[in-house]
């Protein structure tokens, strides 16, 4: 009897997971199906849930554009490259500069270091809209409007405090003895950081890097305000532009969406463990 009860309980729990799977996958499925549908099928009533003539045309239009494709589709690859350059640069800069600061704040006895760390956590929460007006004025004056440079520089406003805070919480977990041993052996602070602390905190650095990369890849507001042509536009701006004034290229829009979602989704699935530890480092730490 207890065995049967146990089985029934398991079955009940499993049935409860079905709505969760539907919640997760129905929108994803519709994104994929729409990207594989012809224009005619997308605009058919009633809806063709399963396309009768599935096609890769939308993908071909974006990846090897001909002359007939729309402006946004034709330039989409360039915006993908822009996004990649911006997100990678922001990640590298934030980790390099941020690791020095994080180490100093958690391990070196500097006046007001605690207050400075709290300040870093505070600035991490400041929304972009609070900074955009002066940044826009300065960028225009310096001739940086519509450049990748201005995006890389301004994205540091969220990336750097975040990287400092997150790396700091990982550095804190490195046993002091290891560090003291290196210092006694005559290593400088920088050597200790690079040869002792960073290798031990490698998982923390990976999760910080992924977080910063994903946030930068996702960023929309600054890219919308600070760019005007394809030379600096990023993927989110390009996707928003598929909704033109007169026509909406739904197939292109969904295909762009799939292409933009692939890198972060794959990263998130591969580095699941690191991401969860990052998401929870604030919540479960204390």
């Amino acid at each position: 009897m207890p065995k049967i009860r146990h089985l029934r309980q398991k079955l009940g729990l499993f049935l409860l997971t079905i709505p969760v799977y539907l919640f997760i996958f129905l929108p994803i499925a519709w994104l994929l199906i729409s990207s594989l549908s012809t224009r005619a099928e997308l605009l058919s009533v009633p809806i063709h849930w399963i396309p009768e003539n599935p096609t890769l045309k939308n993908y071909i239009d974006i990846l090897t554009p001909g002359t007939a494709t729309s402006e946004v589709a034709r330039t989409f690859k360039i915006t993908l490259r822009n996004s990649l350059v911006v997100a990678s640069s922001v990640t590298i800069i934030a980790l390099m500069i941020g690791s020095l600061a994080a180490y100093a704040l958690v391990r070196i006895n500097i006046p007001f270091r605690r207050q400075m760390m709290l300040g870093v956590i505070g600035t991490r929460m400041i929304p972009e809209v609070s900074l955009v007006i002066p940044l826009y004025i300065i960028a225009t004056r310096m001739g940086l409007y519509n450049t990748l440079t201005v995006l890389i520089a301004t994205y540091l406003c969220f990336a750097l405090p975040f990287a400092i805070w997150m790396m700091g919480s990982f550095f804190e977990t490195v046993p002091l003895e290891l560090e003291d041993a290196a210092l006694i052996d005559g290593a400088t602070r920088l050597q200790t950081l690079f040869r002792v602390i960073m290798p031990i905190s490698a998982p923390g650095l990976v999760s910080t890097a992924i977080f910063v990369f994903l946030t930068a890849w996702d960023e929309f507001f600054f890219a919308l305000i600070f760019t005007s042509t394809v030379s600096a536009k990023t993927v989110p701006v390009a996707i928003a532009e598929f909704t033109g004034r007169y026509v909406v290229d739904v197939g292109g829009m969904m295909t762009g969406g799939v292409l933009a979602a692939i890198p972060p989704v794959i990263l998130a699935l591969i580095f699941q463990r690191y991401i969860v530890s990052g998401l929870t480092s604030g919540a479960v730490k204390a």
Partner: protein
Amino acid sequence: MRATVPKSRLTNRQREALVGLLLLLPSLLIIFGITLQPILSTLYLSFFKTGLGINIERVFVGLGNYLNLLGDATFWQTIGRTLYFTVVSVGLELLLGLGIALLIHAHPPGWKFLRAVLIIPWAVPTIVNGTLWRWIYNADYGALNGLLSKLGLIDHYIPWLTHPRTAMNLVILADIWHSVPFIAIILQAALATLPVELEEAAAIDGANAWQRFLYVRLPLLRFAILVALVIRTVEAFRVFDIIYVITNGGPAFGTVTISYLTYLETFSYGNIGRGAALSFLISLFTLTMAVVYIRMLYRPEDRA
């Protein structure tokens, strides 16, 4: 020998502090340049009536922009909509996220797979999320109308995004899809760290499942819930991207939140002073929430 130790330790300390400050310097300069200076500059600009562009005249109006906003019905309606969005989306996300976290924690068949794929909606970029839902809500060809009429719940297609309150609720639905996984993942990880002994003891004492949840599990989860709540509240209060993509603030301003109003005032109407006043108010709100968050993370009892 012994006498020289304190002295050299002192200079060592000073040298240490100097090295520390040097390591900090690049970060401090960047944070000052792209965060602190812009906030102060925004505050300064909010006392002027001015436009975008390099040589536009600035007229000092003191607190004029703020008083103007406080006396403007549009501003208060916007605050109302922002609060509605924040409370409804964060509230529902917390309930659903907690539900999913508890479900995964009960280890149904395939729970590891469920936990893994749960991250997908969170990883999909916000703009993709927005455009996808906009397409789902499409009045003529959208999947929502298609699904509901197939199920026989509606007999004619509904233009979902033409009614302000409905449009707002549908934006909230899109936000829920994106953010529920975030909360579920945080709470599930917190649940996994809870000691099972307490619940077992409560069970032996005769507490039923609901009582165990309410009096044992929930209080232990309190901290993780608070952290998720603060992070999501700050994010929801500043919502911009999905509104821009799904409704463009419409219909009839029905989905204009405070960030969106700041964007419109600044970059569509060119009222820089007014936009600056709005964005400074957003900074103030965020800093208040930041203080709450920091207080929580570093509760005095944890300091020991």
